Protein backbone atom coordinates (compact mmCIF):
# COMPACT_ATOMS: atom_id res chain seq x y z
CA UNK A 1 0.00 0.00 0.00
CA UNK A 2 1.22 3.52 -0.87
CA UNK A 3 1.67 5.96 1.97
CA UNK A 4 1.23 9.68 1.44
CA UNK A 5 5.01 10.15 1.63
CA UNK A 6 5.69 7.53 -1.06
CA UNK A 7 3.00 8.97 -3.25
CA UNK A 8 4.45 12.48 -3.00
CA UNK A 9 7.94 11.18 -3.68
CA UNK A 10 6.72 9.22 -6.70
CA UNK A 11 5.16 12.22 -8.34
CA UNK A 12 8.33 14.26 -7.84
CA UNK A 13 7.22 16.35 -4.91
CA UNK A 14 10.13 15.24 -2.77
CA UNK A 15 10.39 18.57 -0.98
CA UNK A 16 6.76 18.38 0.05
CA UNK A 17 7.20 14.80 1.23
CA UNK A 18 10.23 15.81 3.29
CA UNK A 19 8.34 18.74 4.71
CA UNK A 20 5.52 16.46 5.74
CA UNK A 21 7.82 14.00 7.46
CA UNK A 22 10.02 16.52 9.19
CA UNK A 23 7.92 19.27 10.61
CA UNK A 24 10.84 21.18 12.01
CA UNK A 25 14.44 20.40 11.19
CA UNK A 26 17.79 21.97 10.57
CA UNK A 27 17.33 24.91 12.91
CA UNK A 28 20.10 25.41 15.44
CA UNK A 29 17.88 26.48 18.31
CA UNK A 30 14.28 27.62 18.72
CA UNK A 31 12.70 29.51 21.57
CA UNK A 32 9.00 29.53 22.45
CA UNK A 33 6.04 27.18 22.44
CA UNK A 34 5.04 25.35 19.26
CA UNK A 35 1.75 23.96 18.06
CA UNK A 36 2.07 21.26 15.42
CA UNK A 37 -0.91 20.67 13.18
CA UNK A 38 0.27 17.50 11.48
CA UNK A 39 1.85 14.20 12.48
CA UNK A 40 5.61 14.01 11.99
CA UNK A 41 9.02 14.18 13.52
CA UNK A 42 10.82 17.03 15.22
CA UNK A 43 14.61 17.21 15.13
CA UNK A 44 15.70 20.60 16.34
CA UNK A 45 16.70 22.22 19.62
CA UNK A 46 13.79 23.85 21.37
CA UNK A 47 13.52 25.81 24.57
CA UNK A 48 9.78 25.70 24.95
CA UNK A 49 6.84 23.34 24.69
CA UNK A 50 5.36 21.34 21.83
CA UNK A 51 1.65 20.79 21.60
CA UNK A 52 0.14 18.46 19.03
CA UNK A 53 -3.04 16.48 18.63
CA UNK A 54 -1.26 14.02 16.35
CA UNK A 55 1.49 11.44 16.53
CA UNK A 56 4.80 13.07 17.30
CA UNK A 57 8.37 11.84 17.13
CA UNK A 58 11.31 13.62 18.70
CA UNK A 59 14.16 12.34 16.58
CA UNK A 60 17.63 11.44 17.83
CA UNK A 61 18.87 15.00 17.17
CA UNK A 62 16.01 16.70 18.99
CA UNK A 63 16.70 18.45 22.28
CA UNK A 64 13.55 19.77 23.89
CA UNK A 65 13.32 21.58 27.20
CA UNK A 66 9.67 22.07 27.97
CA UNK A 67 6.30 20.32 28.10
CA UNK A 68 5.35 18.05 25.21
CA UNK A 69 1.87 16.79 24.39
CA UNK A 70 0.73 14.54 21.58
CA UNK A 71 -1.15 11.41 20.66
CA UNK A 72 1.45 8.67 20.26
CA UNK A 73 4.76 10.21 21.26
CA UNK A 74 8.09 8.61 20.41
CA UNK A 75 11.25 10.08 21.90
CA UNK A 76 14.60 9.18 20.39
CA UNK A 77 16.45 12.35 21.43
CA UNK A 78 16.62 14.41 24.58
CA UNK A 79 13.69 15.73 26.56
CA UNK A 80 13.45 17.62 29.80
CA UNK A 81 9.93 18.50 30.89
CA UNK A 82 6.47 17.00 31.17
CA UNK A 83 5.36 14.53 28.53
CA UNK A 84 1.65 13.93 28.12
CA UNK A 85 0.24 11.56 25.53
CA UNK A 86 -3.29 10.45 24.76
CA UNK A 87 -1.88 7.18 23.44
CA UNK A 88 1.52 5.49 23.61
CA UNK A 89 4.72 6.92 25.00
CA UNK A 90 7.83 5.24 23.60
CA UNK A 91 11.34 6.05 24.77
CA UNK A 92 13.73 4.74 22.16
CA UNK A 93 17.11 3.09 22.66
CA UNK A 94 19.42 6.11 22.95
CA UNK A 95 16.98 8.68 24.26
CA UNK A 96 17.70 10.71 27.38
CA UNK A 97 14.57 11.82 29.15
CA UNK A 98 13.95 13.50 32.45
CA UNK A 99 10.23 14.09 32.62
CA UNK A 100 6.89 13.47 34.23
CA UNK A 101 5.09 11.10 31.88
CA UNK A 102 1.37 10.60 31.51
CA UNK A 103 -0.17 8.33 28.90
CA UNK A 104 -2.21 5.26 28.11
CA UNK A 105 0.63 2.88 27.30
CA UNK A 106 4.37 3.04 27.82
CA UNK A 107 7.50 1.46 26.46
CA UNK A 108 11.01 2.03 27.70
CA UNK A 109 13.54 0.39 25.42
CA UNK A 110 16.80 -1.06 26.77
CA UNK A 111 19.52 1.57 26.57
CA UNK A 112 17.19 4.52 27.10
CA UNK A 113 18.12 6.77 29.99
CA UNK A 114 15.04 7.89 31.86
CA UNK A 115 14.23 9.35 35.22
CA UNK A 116 10.90 10.70 36.38
CA UNK A 117 7.42 10.14 37.68
CA UNK A 118 5.19 7.97 35.52
CA UNK A 119 1.41 7.72 35.50
CA UNK A 120 0.20 5.30 32.86
CA UNK A 121 -3.38 4.06 32.65
CA UNK A 122 -6.97 5.25 32.59
CA UNK A 123 -6.64 7.13 35.89
CA UNK A 124 -3.82 9.16 34.53
CA UNK A 125 -5.96 10.01 31.52
CA UNK A 126 -8.38 11.78 33.84
CA UNK A 127 -5.50 13.83 35.08
CA UNK A 128 -4.75 15.04 31.63
CA UNK A 129 -5.51 18.73 31.55
CA UNK A 130 -4.73 19.06 27.95
CA UNK A 131 -7.70 19.12 25.65
CA UNK A 132 -6.52 18.55 22.19
CA UNK A 133 -8.69 19.49 19.31
CA UNK A 134 -7.96 17.99 15.95
CA UNK A 135 -8.06 20.55 13.26
CA UNK A 136 -9.77 19.42 10.15
Amino acid at each position, binding site marked *: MWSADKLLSAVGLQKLADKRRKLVSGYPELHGDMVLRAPGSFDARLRGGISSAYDLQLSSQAEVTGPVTGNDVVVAGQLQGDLTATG*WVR*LKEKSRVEAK*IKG*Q*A*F*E*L*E*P*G*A*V*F*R*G*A*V*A*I*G*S*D*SAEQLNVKLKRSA
Partner: protein
Amino acid sequence: MRLFTKKLPPKELVTCPSCGHEQKDYPSANATFCHRCGTRILLQEKPRRQAVRKQVELKARRRMVACLHCGREMRIHEEAQKWQCTSCSAYVDLANHDIQREHTASIQTYGDIVVGAKGVLAGAKAEAENIRMAGRAMPRVVCRKCLVIEGTVKLAAGAEGPLLQVLENTSLGAEGLLEFEMMEVKGQVQGKQVKVLGSLEIFPGASLQADQISARRILVHPLGKLLGYVQSLTAAEIVT
Protein backbone atom coordinates in the same frame (compact mmCIF):
# COMPACT_ATOMS: atom_id res chain seq x y z
CA MET B 1 13.74 -88.65 50.38
CA ARG B 2 12.89 -85.87 47.95
CA LEU B 3 10.11 -83.54 49.11
CA PHE B 4 9.61 -81.95 45.75
CA THR B 5 11.03 -82.18 42.34
CA LYS B 6 11.97 -79.14 40.29
CA LYS B 7 11.95 -79.64 36.59
CA LEU B 8 15.09 -78.15 35.14
CA PRO B 9 15.01 -76.63 31.63
CA PRO B 10 16.60 -78.70 28.89
CA LYS B 11 20.21 -78.03 28.04
CA GLU B 12 21.23 -76.76 24.66
CA LEU B 13 24.29 -77.42 22.53
CA VAL B 14 26.98 -74.74 22.80
CA THR B 15 30.03 -74.52 20.54
CA CYS B 16 33.28 -73.00 21.79
CA PRO B 17 34.31 -70.18 19.43
CA SER B 18 37.96 -70.85 20.22
CA CYS B 19 38.46 -74.63 19.83
CA GLY B 20 35.12 -75.71 18.37
CA HIS B 21 34.34 -78.10 21.24
CA GLU B 22 30.65 -78.82 21.64
CA GLN B 23 29.05 -79.14 25.05
CA LYS B 24 25.58 -78.86 26.60
CA ASP B 25 24.62 -75.94 28.83
CA TYR B 26 21.52 -74.23 30.15
CA PRO B 27 20.31 -71.59 27.66
CA SER B 28 19.30 -69.17 30.44
CA ALA B 29 22.91 -68.89 31.65
CA ASN B 30 24.69 -65.66 30.84
CA ALA B 31 28.05 -67.32 30.15
CA THR B 32 29.93 -70.59 30.53
CA PHE B 33 33.46 -71.95 30.16
CA CYS B 34 34.63 -74.36 27.50
CA HIS B 35 35.19 -77.76 29.12
CA ARG B 36 38.21 -78.37 26.87
CA CYS B 37 40.19 -75.09 26.55
CA GLY B 38 38.62 -72.99 29.34
CA THR B 39 37.59 -70.08 27.06
CA ARG B 40 34.72 -67.96 28.38
CA ILE B 41 31.68 -68.33 26.12
CA LEU B 42 29.02 -65.61 26.25
CA LEU B 43 25.55 -67.10 25.89
CA GLN B 44 23.44 -63.92 26.31
CA GLU B 45 24.38 -60.37 25.63
CA LYS B 46 21.05 -58.77 26.55
CA PRO B 47 21.40 -58.61 30.35
CA ARG B 48 24.68 -56.72 30.04
CA ARG B 49 23.23 -54.20 27.64
CA GLN B 50 20.26 -53.67 29.92
CA ALA B 51 22.61 -53.14 32.87
CA VAL B 52 24.57 -50.52 30.92
CA ARG B 53 21.35 -48.83 29.87
CA LYS B 54 20.18 -48.73 33.48
CA GLN B 55 23.47 -47.15 34.52
CA VAL B 56 23.11 -44.51 31.83
CA GLU B 57 19.54 -43.80 32.94
CA LEU B 58 20.68 -43.47 36.53
CA LYS B 59 23.42 -41.05 35.49
CA ALA B 60 20.95 -39.03 33.45
CA ARG B 61 18.55 -38.77 36.38
CA ARG B 62 21.15 -37.22 38.63
CA ARG B 63 21.59 -33.51 39.15
CA MET B 64 24.22 -31.17 40.52
CA VAL B 65 23.40 -29.59 43.83
CA ALA B 66 25.55 -27.20 45.89
CA CYS B 67 25.52 -27.51 49.66
CA LEU B 68 23.71 -24.50 51.13
CA HIS B 69 26.17 -24.36 54.02
CA CYS B 70 29.64 -24.89 52.52
CA GLY B 71 28.89 -24.62 48.80
CA ARG B 72 30.39 -27.96 47.82
CA GLU B 73 28.85 -29.33 44.64
CA MET B 74 27.44 -32.84 44.71
CA ARG B 75 25.93 -35.09 42.08
CA ILE B 76 22.84 -36.66 43.57
CA HIS B 77 19.84 -38.64 42.43
CA GLU B 78 16.96 -36.56 41.18
CA GLU B 79 14.36 -38.31 43.31
CA ALA B 80 16.31 -38.04 46.60
CA GLN B 81 14.45 -36.11 49.30
CA LYS B 82 17.42 -35.39 51.54
CA TRP B 83 21.18 -35.61 51.16
CA GLN B 84 24.13 -35.23 53.48
CA CYS B 85 26.96 -33.03 52.31
CA THR B 86 30.14 -35.02 51.78
CA SER B 87 32.22 -32.06 52.94
CA CYS B 88 30.49 -30.49 55.99
CA SER B 89 27.95 -33.24 56.78
CA ALA B 90 25.07 -30.77 56.75
CA TYR B 91 21.74 -32.06 55.48
CA VAL B 92 20.62 -30.68 52.13
CA ASP B 93 16.86 -30.50 51.77
CA LEU B 94 15.61 -31.65 48.36
CA ALA B 95 11.95 -32.15 49.17
CA ASN B 96 8.90 -30.15 48.12
CA HIS B 97 7.02 -28.31 50.87
CA ASP B 98 3.30 -27.66 50.99
CA ILE B 99 2.49 -24.93 53.52
CA GLN B 100 -1.20 -24.63 54.36
CA ARG B 101 -0.87 -23.00 57.82
CA GLU B 102 1.75 -21.15 59.81
CA HIS B 103 5.20 -22.65 59.34
CA THR B 104 7.73 -21.26 61.81
CA ALA B 105 10.84 -23.15 60.69
CA SER B 106 13.24 -21.94 58.03
CA ILE B 107 13.03 -23.65 54.65
CA GLN B 108 16.02 -23.92 52.35
CA THR B 109 15.30 -26.54 49.77
CA TYR B 110 16.21 -27.60 46.26
CA GLY B 111 12.58 -28.62 45.86
CA ASP B 112 9.54 -26.37 45.44
CA ILE B 113 7.36 -24.56 47.96
CA VAL B 114 3.62 -24.12 47.68
CA VAL B 115 2.04 -21.71 50.14
CA GLY B 116 -1.75 -21.96 50.33
CA ALA B 117 -4.17 -19.08 50.95
CA LYS B 118 -3.95 -19.61 54.72
CA GLY B 119 -0.31 -20.52 54.73
CA VAL B 120 2.30 -18.33 56.38
CA LEU B 121 6.04 -18.65 56.00
CA ALA B 122 7.21 -17.41 59.38
CA GLY B 123 10.71 -18.86 59.64
CA ALA B 124 13.96 -16.98 59.25
CA LYS B 125 14.58 -18.13 55.67
CA ALA B 126 12.50 -19.20 52.68
CA GLU B 127 14.49 -20.41 49.70
CA ALA B 128 13.45 -22.85 46.98
CA GLU B 129 13.60 -23.60 43.28
CA ASN B 130 10.02 -22.62 42.39
CA ILE B 131 7.61 -20.97 44.81
CA ARG B 132 3.86 -20.66 44.35
CA MET B 133 2.42 -18.17 46.83
CA ALA B 134 -1.17 -17.57 47.82
CA GLY B 135 -0.53 -16.65 51.46
CA ARG B 136 2.00 -14.61 53.39
CA ALA B 137 5.73 -14.65 53.99
CA MET B 138 7.60 -12.95 56.78
CA PRO B 139 11.22 -13.56 55.66
CA ARG B 140 12.74 -12.50 52.36
CA VAL B 141 11.61 -15.01 49.75
CA VAL B 142 14.40 -16.30 47.52
CA CYS B 143 13.55 -18.45 44.52
CA ARG B 144 16.08 -19.88 42.09
CA LYS B 145 13.72 -20.23 39.14
CA CYS B 146 10.24 -18.73 39.39
CA LEU B 147 7.98 -17.09 41.97
CA VAL B 148 4.31 -17.28 41.06
CA ILE B 149 1.71 -15.15 42.84
CA GLU B 150 -1.68 -16.82 42.73
CA GLY B 151 -3.72 -15.23 45.51
CA THR B 152 -3.71 -12.31 47.91
CA VAL B 153 -0.08 -12.34 48.88
CA LYS B 154 1.90 -10.25 51.32
CA LEU B 155 5.67 -10.33 51.38
CA ALA B 156 6.94 -8.57 54.48
CA ALA B 157 10.60 -8.55 53.46
CA GLY B 158 10.35 -8.62 49.68
CA ALA B 159 11.58 -11.28 47.30
CA GLU B 160 14.24 -12.00 44.71
CA GLY B 161 14.90 -14.42 41.86
CA PRO B 162 15.01 -14.75 38.09
CA LEU B 163 11.28 -14.50 37.34
CA LEU B 164 8.21 -13.11 39.10
CA GLN B 165 4.80 -13.89 37.65
CA VAL B 166 1.75 -12.20 39.11
CA LEU B 167 -1.26 -14.04 37.75
CA GLU B 168 -4.63 -12.52 36.81
CA ASN B 169 -7.05 -11.65 39.64
CA THR B 170 -4.30 -11.77 42.23
CA SER B 171 -2.63 -9.11 44.31
CA LEU B 172 0.80 -8.73 45.77
CA GLY B 173 1.76 -6.33 48.52
CA ALA B 174 5.46 -6.10 49.25
CA GLU B 175 7.14 -4.12 51.99
CA GLY B 176 10.75 -4.87 51.08
CA LEU B 177 12.63 -4.80 47.81
CA LEU B 178 11.31 -6.88 44.92
CA GLU B 179 14.37 -7.73 42.83
CA PHE B 180 13.97 -9.94 39.77
CA GLU B 181 15.51 -10.43 36.36
CA MET B 182 12.09 -10.53 34.71
CA MET B 183 8.66 -9.54 35.95
CA GLU B 184 5.29 -10.31 34.35
CA VAL B 185 2.38 -8.52 35.97
CA LYS B 186 -1.15 -9.65 35.14
CA GLY B 187 -2.63 -8.81 38.57
CA GLN B 188 -2.15 -5.95 41.03
CA VAL B 189 1.19 -5.16 42.62
CA GLN B 190 1.85 -2.59 45.30
CA GLY B 191 5.30 -2.18 46.70
CA LYS B 192 7.94 0.20 47.94
CA GLN B 193 10.88 -0.63 45.73
CA VAL B 194 10.91 -2.69 42.55
CA LYS B 195 14.10 -3.50 40.68
CA VAL B 196 13.99 -5.46 37.43
CA LEU B 197 17.33 -6.18 35.81
CA GLY B 198 15.69 -7.21 32.54
CA SER B 199 12.15 -6.70 31.35
CA LEU B 200 9.12 -5.50 33.30
CA GLU B 201 5.85 -6.14 31.50
CA ILE B 202 2.44 -4.96 32.66
CA PHE B 203 -0.46 -6.58 30.85
CA PRO B 204 -3.94 -5.11 30.18
CA GLY B 205 -5.99 -4.91 33.38
CA ALA B 206 -2.90 -5.18 35.58
CA SER B 207 -1.28 -2.49 37.67
CA LEU B 208 1.97 -1.76 39.40
CA GLN B 209 2.32 0.97 41.99
CA ALA B 210 5.59 1.53 43.78
CA ASP B 211 7.58 4.35 45.28
CA GLN B 212 10.65 3.48 43.24
CA ILE B 213 10.75 1.40 40.10
CA SER B 214 13.92 0.68 38.19
CA ALA B 215 14.14 -1.55 35.15
CA ARG B 216 16.11 -2.02 31.95
CA ARG B 217 13.03 -2.41 29.78
CA ILE B 218 9.44 -1.51 30.62
CA LEU B 219 6.36 -2.31 28.61
CA VAL B 220 2.95 -1.20 29.81
CA HIS B 221 0.22 -2.44 27.49
CA PRO B 222 -2.90 -0.32 26.86
CA LEU B 223 -5.28 -0.69 29.86
CA GLY B 224 -2.34 -1.52 32.07
CA LYS B 225 -1.36 0.84 34.86
CA LEU B 226 1.99 2.01 36.12
CA LEU B 227 2.38 4.58 38.84
CA GLY B 228 5.57 5.61 40.56
CA TYR B 229 8.98 7.15 40.20
CA VAL B 230 10.75 5.30 37.42
CA GLN B 231 14.44 5.10 36.69
CA SER B 232 15.90 3.20 33.77
CA LEU B 233 18.71 0.72 34.32
CA THR B 234 21.36 0.83 31.66
CA ALA B 235 23.61 -2.14 30.94
CA ALA B 236 26.49 -0.46 32.80
CA GLU B 237 24.41 -0.08 35.95
CA ILE B 238 23.40 -3.74 35.84
CA VAL B 239 27.04 -4.90 35.63
CA THR B 240 28.07 -2.76 38.61
